[in-house]
Every structure is written in structure tokens, then in C-alpha cells.
């Protein structure tokens, strides 16, 4: 592959696009497929054939369009019209109306804040390009970042651009990406590796899955650029086996890129070679922790080990290893294309760029959103999310999954970035955002997350293995209405010991949901303990409990 060949592919693709009058884009990400968007796509194709529009109209599968609750979604590329909750029998009407007024009863309003308030960098191609065709990605400036890095930048310049961008790790902890790349680039070792962490496991989070399903090449390109910057020639992408569609698209994407010479030996005729292999997770949440993930890739039991040494120094097979999250790598190609300063111009002082969130729970518009850092929680929930359904009252928003905390109403106007979320006792996390209304019992929520941590603890270190179990028992006692003040004191003491003595991030952050709900909703705990009642009416206590026996 030469630069000319790459541009030729893009031109051919764009020409073909111009010759098509109407392109129907059907969302083929997991959310819409679960509501049978594949059947919708099929019948749209049949209708086009039936109406003899085969020459001028095209149907293509695209990635996630964001508003998952309104799926299956179908967009008309040329006019920008968006149809929601499309059934296979609606296909005829949609096809008949191509080039005329859109079908009114199916139209989804794209002027609502859900669409207008977002800023898309990571998701710029999601819902636009066909994730199964590399040509479309190339036509959307794909692999140009890699081309630029390989042909007109040296390794240090790539690292410098990433540092300049101010990008921080999107996996949750927010470590400066440029610093990590610089460290791995400097680390001494005959072989180095790049790993992409796609072991997304937080309950309610599906950002990485959507990126991998919608735009897999972007992640591959980011990894290849990373490989060039740190001096690695082999990459592994670790995806959980529960994401079969993402795995399939990734594997196909790797094959396509290899066929075109965008992965493999001497990419763009340079001395740089890079290969990527997929590794599947076997269902352990802890394998999202980098040292456990590395152990798993090595074929060992997925258990974390103490750091330091960090993977940057001793990672996969004891070689220096660059390990970043899916969304982090997905940010790299536009940073290289547009320069680090462009990226640093978006967001806040300490949080640059955008963040993808999976908006879920008691909110009208659930789905995938990408917003600039610094947007307020209120804007996300009440404008983009459309507020709380059924006239209920907002109670809290949970960010960061089992490692995060619950944020109450008083902090809704706070800016969303790493530091402000940490200040109120939560974390940015990988991007799960669960909204809760007045019908959620906060003790029950804490118990849910504690149960998750308890069953997902790898069992290596004592405080996480046994501490989470004891905390879960205590929380169960509270929700049963049989706990005492001593039990609560013991729970708080356990929070402290588990947080401070656990080996890895899973244990260190496992108490967060309890600590944050105790901080803001202590009265609910007290109501369970002293008055033996659940203010939200979720926990069955006393009489109700007897009645169910």
C-alpha cells in the first residue's frame, strides 16, 4: 500500500457515493440488532429491488447512532432524516417516500438536544460508515493518521502530539496518555507490546462495545500509531467473549487491514511492521485490571499482581507494554490528523477532549452519547437525556460502575471531568452513567454493587476476597431491617480496610458505592436500621417480609 493507493481507494469510494441518490443506513450495532434491525435491513433491500430502485438506492449497515432506546434506527444519508422504531413492515413506506417528505409517523426529531448537544470525535464515524467495509473508513480519512505518523513524524513527535493533546486514559483512572507512551518509548527492551483493553465489564456500560462494533478500524489505527510511537511490532486486543459481534467485526477488520497492507510488514513502504491479534476474555471482570489482563493474555489465571513494576516497564512476558483502553486508542487517529493542540482546545483545563457515556437507568433517552468534558451533569441528564420519565423525581446518578459512587442532586451543576467527579466521591470511570429516581433505594444500590464486587473478586488478596463478602452480609442485614448501629460501624470500618489494603483497583474501589451513599444518603441507612422501613419501598422489611415467607 502506497499513500497514492490509499487516496485512490478514498476517491473511488466517494465517487461511488455521489452516484447513489439515496442511501439508507440501518443501525447494525448490538442494541438495534437485538430489536431485529437485521430484518429491517433485509426488507428494505427487498423493497428497493421490488420498486426497481436498485441502481440509485443503497442499503447499508452502519454502527451505533446513539439513541438506543428508539431502535431499530434507520437514517437517510443524503437528507439526514432519521426513522425510529422501524419494523420490517415499514420498509415499503420508507422506500416509497425516498426523495419526498419523510414518513411522518416514524420520524425521529434530530433537532432535539440529544443530537445537537453532543460533540463527536470518538464516535464521528459511528452510525455513518459501514463498519464491515474498510473502504468506507478510508473514505472518512481513515488510516491517514497512521500515514502521517509513519511518513512525516518520528516517534518522539508522535508522543509529543499525544502529550500536547492532554488526552487522559479513558479506562477510568485518567492517567495522562502522552506520559504513558513516553515511558514505554523510553523503556529498554528487545521486544515491546501494545495491548488494547476491551474488557469492558461495568454493569450498564457499553461504550467500548459500541466503538468496536461501529468503527473497529479506528481502534486498529490508534494501536498501530501507538506501536510506532513506542517501538512495538505486535499488538493484542483483549475483548470479552460476551461481545461476539464486536469480536467478529474486529477480526474481519484486521483481515481487511492486513489484505490492504495497512497492518503487517513494512506499512506504507516504511520499516515499520505491526500485527494485531484478538484475545478473548473468559468472563472475569478483574481482567479489566491491566496486570490481570496481561496474565490472562499470557494464558495464566487472570489475577492482578502488585505494581510497581508497571506494565510500561515489565508487562506482557516481562517486556515493556503499552496498555490503553479502547476509547483512548480511538481518540488517537484524529489527534494525529488534526494535531494535539486542536484536541487540547476542547474540554476543560484538566480534562481535554470528549467522553463517551452509556446513559442508562431512569432517564428518557437511554443510549450512547459523546459530550465535551466540562459539560454539567444536569445538561447530560435533563437536556440530552430528556429528564426523568413518568414525572418522577431525580435522586442520584451513578458514575464509574462498581468502582464509582452515587452523586446526589446538589452536585448536578458540577462540571464533568476527572477531578471534579473524584472530589464528590465518585470517579469518571470508563463511562457508565446510571440515573436513579426516587424509587431507587440507595442501600439496595450499594448492595447490588457490593454483590458484583464480591462475586468478581479474584480471591487473591484477603481484604477484597473476604472483606467484600462480609460487607455484603452487613448490607443484606440492613436491607432486611435486622441491622444495628454496631453493624453500620463495622461496615464503615470494613470500607476503610478494604480500600486501603487491597492489592488492585477492584478491591481499592469496591467500597466506593457504600462510602458515597453513606455520605449523601445516610438517612436512608438510618431509616432501615432504626425505623425498620425502606423509604423508597424497595426492601421488604418486617411485615412485608413475613408476608412473603
Amino acid at each position, binding site marked *: 500500500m502506497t499513500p497514492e493507493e490509499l487516496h485512490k481507494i478514498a476517491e473511488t469510494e466517494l465517487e461511488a457515493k455521489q452516484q447513489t441518490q439515496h442511501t439508507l443506513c440501518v443501525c447494525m450495532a448490538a442494541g438495534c440488532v437485538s430489536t431485529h434491525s437485521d430484518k429491517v435491513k433485509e426488507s428494505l433491500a427487498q423493497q428497493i429491488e421490488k420498486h426497481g430502485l436498485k441502481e440509485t438506492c443503497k442499503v447499508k449497515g452502519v454502527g451505533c447512532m446513539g439513541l438506543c432506546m428508539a431502535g431499530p434506527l434507520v437514517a437517510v444519508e443524503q437528507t439526514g432524516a432519521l426513522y425510529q422504531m422501524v419494523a420490517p413492515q415499514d420498509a415499503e413506506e420508507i422506500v416509497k417516500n425516498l426523495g419526498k417528505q419523510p414518513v411522518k409517523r416514524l420520524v425521529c426529531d434530530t433537532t432535539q438536544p440529544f443530537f445537537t448537544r453532543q460533540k463527536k470525535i470518538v464516535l464521528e464515524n459511528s452510525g455513518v460508515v459501514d463498519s464491515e467495509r474498510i473502504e468506507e473508513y478510508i473514505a472518512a480519512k481513515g488510516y491517514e493518521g497512521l500515514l502521517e505518523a509513519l511518513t512525516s513524524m518520528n516517534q518522539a513527535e508522535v508522543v509529543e502530539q499525544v502529550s500536547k493533546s492532554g488526552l487522559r486514559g479513558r479506562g477510568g483512572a485518567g492517567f495522562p496518555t502522552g506520559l504513558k507512551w513516553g515511558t514505554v518509548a523510553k523503556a529498554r527492551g528487545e521486544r515491546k507490546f501494545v495491548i488494547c483493553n476491551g474488557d469492558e465489564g461495568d454493569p450498564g456500560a457499553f461504550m467500548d462495545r459500541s466503538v468496536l462494533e461501529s468503527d473497529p478500524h479506528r481502534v486498529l489505527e490508534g494501536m498501530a500509531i501507538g506501536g510506532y510511537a513506542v517501538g512495538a511490532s505486535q499488538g493484542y486486543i483483549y475483548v470479552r467473549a460476551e461481545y461476539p459481534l464486536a469480536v467478529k467485526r474486529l477480526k474481519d477488520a484486521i483481515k481487511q487491514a492486513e489484505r490492504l497492507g495497512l497492518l503487517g510488514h513494512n506499512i506504507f513502504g516504511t520499516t515499520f511492521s505491526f500485527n494485531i491479534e484478538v484475545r478473548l476474555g473468559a468472563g*472475569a471482570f478483574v481482567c479489566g485490571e491491566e496486570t490481570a489482563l496481561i496474565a490472562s493474555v499470557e494464558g495464566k489465571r487472570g489475577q492482578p499482581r502488585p505494581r510497581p513494576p508497571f506494565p510500561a516497564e515489565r508487562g506482557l512476558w516481562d517486556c515493556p507494554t503499552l496498555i490503553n483502553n479502547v476509547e483512548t486508542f480511538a481518540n488517537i487517529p484524529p489527534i494525529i490528523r488534526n494535531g494535539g493542540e486542536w484536541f487540547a482546545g476542547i474540554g476543560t483545563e484538566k480534562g481535554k477532549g470528549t467522553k463517551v457515556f452509556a446513559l442508562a437507568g431512569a432517564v428518557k433517552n437511554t443510549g450512547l452519547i459523546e459530550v465535551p468534558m466540562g459539560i454539567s451533569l444536569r445538561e447530560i441528564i435533563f437536556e440530552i437525556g430528556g429528564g426523568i420519565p413518568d414525572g418522577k423525581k431525580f435522586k442520584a446518578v451513578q458514575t464509574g460502575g462498581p468502582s464509582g459512587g452515587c452523586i446526589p442532586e446538589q452536585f448536578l451543576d458540577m462540571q464533568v471531568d476527572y477531578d471534579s467527579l473524584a472530589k464528590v466521591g465518585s470517579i469518571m470511570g470508563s463511562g457508565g452513567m446510571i440515573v436513579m429516581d426516587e424509587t431507587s433505594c440507595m442501600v439496595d444500590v450499594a448492595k447490588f454493587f457490593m454483590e458484583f464486587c464480591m462475586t468478581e473478586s479474584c480471591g487473591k488478596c484477603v481484604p477484597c476476597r473476604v*472483606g467484600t463478602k462480609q460487607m455484603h452480609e452487613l448490607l443484606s442485614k440492613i436491607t432486611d431491617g435486622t441491622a444495628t448501629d454496631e453493624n453500620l460501624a463495622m461496615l464503615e470500618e470494613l470500607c476503610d480496610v478494604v480500600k486501603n489494603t487491597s492489592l488492585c483497583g477492584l478491591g481499592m474501589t469496591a467500597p466506593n458505592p457504600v462510602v458515597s451513599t453513606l455520605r449523601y444518603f445516610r438517612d436512608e441507612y438510618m431509616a432501615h436500621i432504626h425505623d425498620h422501613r425502606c423509604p423508597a419501598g424497595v426492601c421488604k422489611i418486617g411485615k412485608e417480609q413475613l408476608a412473603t415467607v
Partner: protein
Amino acid sequence: MNPSAQKTLSVKTLQINGKDVSAREDQTILDVARENGVFIPTLCNLDGLTPVGACRLCLVEVKGSRRLLPACITQVQDNMEVSTNTETLVKYRKMILELLFAERNHVCSVCVSNGHCELQAMAQKLGVDHIRYPYLYPKLAVDASHDRFAVDHNRCILCQRCVRVCDEIEGAHTWDVQGRGTASLVITDLNQPWGTSESCTSCGKCVQVCPTGTLFEKGRASGEMTKREFLPYLTLMREERV
């Protein structure tokens, strides 16, 4: 530079509990503390095996570090200021022991290792006289299918010493861990009865390194299971050969 000069390890100086001490750069905080007569409690650590930092008893405070660090695995650095016995550390260590005692069925009076158990001794040494957490009483099996040895999961603290000695010293890797969280169990081969294990060489090293009464020789009654210390000898022999 000649090759032997490259091998030379540099020397570091640091403070442990306010006392100035010196160390080779490849030593851990635990090594140096022991050399200087400073006691740091350990359970999963065993000289001669790769440290894993699992029991969390050896956590120490290091000035400037946000986190507590496991002494068994943390290498010394110049000017480190280490505290091994602060009030918080003592509290955490006792709580961790309590958690261990509440996890499985540690009934000392009827245990083969009564009086020779590292968990029991550690609890006595650290002054754990009550277990405040509710006992979890899991139902766990005893596997006595091996000719000479038996494994009683009720006493296991998952220190992984057996796993490591079998892999690193004997080279058989018969033992490993299955399951997650409190459901974790040490297993032989692919979780088959020990007596049917094809990789086990019946060397008995795992039995000798077990800190509690989990792995024991058959025919020992309550309190009769004592251990031989062979790893320090092996380590010494290896070092001398170099």
C-alpha cells in the same frame, strides 16, 4: 567496564522506623527489616518462593506514597522512610486476620497443625483475641484420595504457597487455583482427586510449606503435624553455586 563490574549492585540507605539502615538495591523492605531485627508479619511470603503480596499482612507505610506497600515485594529505594508498626497498620493487620478466621472453618482444637500453625501463631503474636465478624461456615470438602497426604479446604487461607512451590521448586505445577472470590479453591490438575493426579510426584513439598493444617500427612492426629524447613537450605545451596 569489565563484565564483573556490571554485576555489582549498588547500595541504598533508608530509614525503617526512624533507624538508618543500608541495603543492596535488589533487596525488599522485608529483607532489610529482617536483617535489622524489625518484625513485619507475613503469611503468604516464604523465602525461596516468588512473593505474591496476597495476604496483605506485611503492608507498610512509606513516606510520600499514597498507598500502603507490601514489604515482601517492594524493593528498597534511597532515602525511603518506612514505618512498619503504626497504629493504623496494627489495626488493619488484626482485621485481616479476623477476616481470615471468619472465612473458613478454622477450629484449632481439632486441627492437625494445632500448635504448629502459622495463622494461629500470627493471631497470638498480633493479639487477635476476638473475631467480631460473623463466621461464614462454608461447606468444604476434604480430599484424602492421595496415598500419603490429604487436603482439608476448611483450613486453607489461599496463600498459594503450595501452588508456587509445586511450580517453581518441584516443577510439576500440580496445584493451581480455581474459582473466584470466596469460592476460590486450590485444586490438583484439572480439579480431580489428588490421588488420581498424573502430574503429582508425591514429593510432599506442598505439605511442608502449608502454613496451616490444610495440607497434611495422613496418620497425624490433632496437633501432630509439624513441618520441615527445606526452602532456606535450597536457596542457600543455589546461591552458593553461583
